[in-house]
């Protein structure tokens, strides 16, 4: 038997559980009407909530940027990949979010992975909502910190676990989605501000 036979078996298990998934091709841009594998459909499967992905103003800005700086940056930001447009975007985000500064990662997933791992390590505690996005879950696992999950949006459970475990660790990161992406419900962030000041928070 091939040393990679286990892959076929693993795929078979996925099929049996009705968990198998595959990509499906959409012909045109993100829009309310799409053509999926030749069939015209109304699209209720997009995260382009404000409908900007097909906006001609964004396309025009992207085309101008390609003509000015090319299609790729040719390096990491710290070595040779930093352009004026990065600085402009980071300033715009900071102004919009009313913070002093901002940092643009290459995707939301990478932003969560990188930030969480920069903030906590093996001597620390992470308390995380059980329905958090995969990027927060995976980011938390990679840190090597003690990871405890609290029941979805449950402040009572969160407070109880904080009280029980906080003292054993150096820093503590509370980790939650703002809008939970799978259900569309919100984290009750205002009630977090009522946590005692010695319970460090960061979202």
């Amino acid at each position, binding site marked *: 038997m091939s040393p990679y036979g286990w892959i076929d078996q693993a795929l078979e298990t996925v099929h049996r559980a009705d968990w198998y998934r595959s990509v499906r091709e959409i012909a045109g841009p993100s829009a309310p009407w799409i053509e999926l594998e030749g069939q015209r459909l109304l699209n*209720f499967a997009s995260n382009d909530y404000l409908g900007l992905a097909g906006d001609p103003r964004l396309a025009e800005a992207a085309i101008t940027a390609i003509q000015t700086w090319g299609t790729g940056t040719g390096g990491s930001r710290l070595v040779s990949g930093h352009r004026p447009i990065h600085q402009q975007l980071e300033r715009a985000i900071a102004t919009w979010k009313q*913070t002093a500064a901002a940092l643009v990662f290459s995707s939301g997933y990478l932003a969560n992975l990188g930030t969480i791992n920069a903030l906590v390590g093996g001597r620390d505690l992470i308390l995380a909502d059980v329905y958090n996005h995969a990027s927060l879950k995976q980011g938390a696992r990679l840190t090597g910190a003690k990871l405890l999950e609290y029941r979805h949006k449950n402040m009572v459970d969160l407070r109880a676990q904080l009280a029980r475990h906080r003292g054993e660790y150096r820093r503590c990161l509370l980790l939650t989605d703002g809008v939970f992406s799978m259900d569309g419900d919100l984290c009750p962030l205002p009630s977090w501000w009522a946590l005692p000041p010695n319970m460090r928070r960061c979202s």
Partner: protein
Amino acid sequence: MAGSAALIDYLRNRASSWIYTTGLSPADTAAALAAVQIIEKGQALRSQLWQGINQLKTAVLTEIPQVSEASSDCDRPLRLLPSDAAILCLQLPNPGAVLQASQQLQQQGMFVPAIRPPTVPTSRLRISLMASHQPEQIAALVRALCQIQI
């Protein structure tokens, strides 16, 4: 990531997924900047989106006989999960049922994905709205949801 000057400076020095990856492409960066500029004065877009959300939520609960709210006791096959955003989920009993429902919707011209474990704890249809959806398109979705048979 938005934050204090010290936090951002620290991340530029300690966040591996930013440090060791090629800078975001000029096209993506410029498109994102144009989007931020539009969003800052985009109240009209947001209110269009919310009109659609409210229309869909009301219609799902009042016009579709198979739907109950997640908190209710009755055993109708579709349960509307709590939501405060442009994502509305209808929970079904198992992965097979949600795949069937999604296929039936597609036969009626509606693309509504089946989201299953391990992505989520329970199988559901996940409907996401865009500001550019028209009221009659949302009404057509509700008519299609009424036709689901499992």
